[in-house]
């Protein structure tokens, strides 16, 4: 691994030692696949024909609602609208911690997003979809998400399961009601193991 020297100006006190990795000795493993950005009211976002060449997928999203209502973000795989999803969540709303679950749902719940009342504020999500091409196991999803509006907000951890051994080739992301607001962005990445 090659190391180069650069300015110590970022360290404000004490002895300074710094290094920068030149990326030359490590195999590439995190790839951007596709990105969708809502230009106005958007009913849903679909990633289709997902390459089957990675081990895991990661969705990184910023989301808000198109209307003056808070809402929630949901996900389905391979157009499956059957009761084949389950999920659990642990969340905090700034006052108390809570937990919810659903066992036989028609979607997987990823978290809440804010209304358009604060135009510049969005919820953020990091969604990990593990072993998505493996046809020997159900598909497990881990989500960190949350938003803060300086006086309100919610943050949570969620786990989900899609009871199918099919490889995931399509991902649909949609709100519980209304539509996604302008500038909501959905980025899909592939991770090689």
């Amino acid at each position: 691994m090659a190391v180069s020297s650069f300015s110590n100006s970022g360290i404000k006190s004490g002895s300074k030692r710094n290094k920068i990795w030149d990326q030359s000795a490590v195999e590439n493993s995190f790839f951007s696949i596709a990105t969708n950005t809502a230009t106005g009211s958007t009913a849903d976002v679909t990633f289709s024909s997902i390459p089957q060449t990675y081990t895991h997928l990661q969705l990184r999203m910023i989301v808000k609602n198109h209307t003056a209502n808070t809402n929630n973000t949901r996900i389905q795989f391979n157009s499956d609208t059957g009761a084949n999803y389950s999920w659990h969540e642990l969340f905090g709303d700034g006052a108390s911690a809570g937990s919810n679950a659903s066992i036989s749902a028609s979607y997987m719940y990823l978290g809440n997003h804010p209304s358009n009342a604060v135009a510049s504020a969005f919820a953020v999500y990091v969604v990990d979809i593990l072993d998505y091409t493996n046809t020997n196991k159900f598909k497990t999803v881990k989500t960190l998400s949350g938003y803060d509006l300086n006086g309100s907000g919610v943050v949570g951890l969620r786990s989900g399961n899609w009871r199918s051994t099919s490889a995931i080739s399509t991902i649909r992301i949609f709100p519980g009601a209304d539509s996604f607001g302008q500038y909501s962005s959905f980025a899909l990445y592939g991770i090689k193991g």
Partner: protein
Amino acid sequence: MPATNTYDAIQSYTLTSATNTVTFGSIPQTYTDLVLILNLGSTPSAQLTRLRFNGDTGTNYSDTKLRGNGTTAYSTRISNDSNATLNEFAYASTTLGKCNIIVNFMNYSNTTTYKTFLFRANNADLGTELGAGLWRSTAAISAIEVSNPGNNFLSGSTFSLYGIKAA
């Protein structure tokens, strides 16, 4: 859909002496998200970790947190603060290797949106925290200041910044 390799190491610091503040400056604006990974100790006593962006000392920071201490899970909120506090509970200890923090800054270079970031802080002896933070500014994040209020980060503490670029 052609795939583009991303997740680049931007800058990394390992302290060789006790230091109060580490700043990542002149952050490239060519990525979509940033990931900050911290492995911290504190001296002479355990202490929380704070962030500021672009030198903004105004009361433009807030967050909602969820945390557990092994006995109780609870949620708190900070509003109108002059810093983002990453670990009100999972402090940086006086021993290295106990406190780690990961922060995801989403769409940090977007000049239309406020900056929302997700963070997880863990201390094996104290507990774990998850937070959603907000910096009420539409400015692109060009500098991130990591500080230890009143104390210093231990020698050996590491600070690593990565960039992720969407297609």
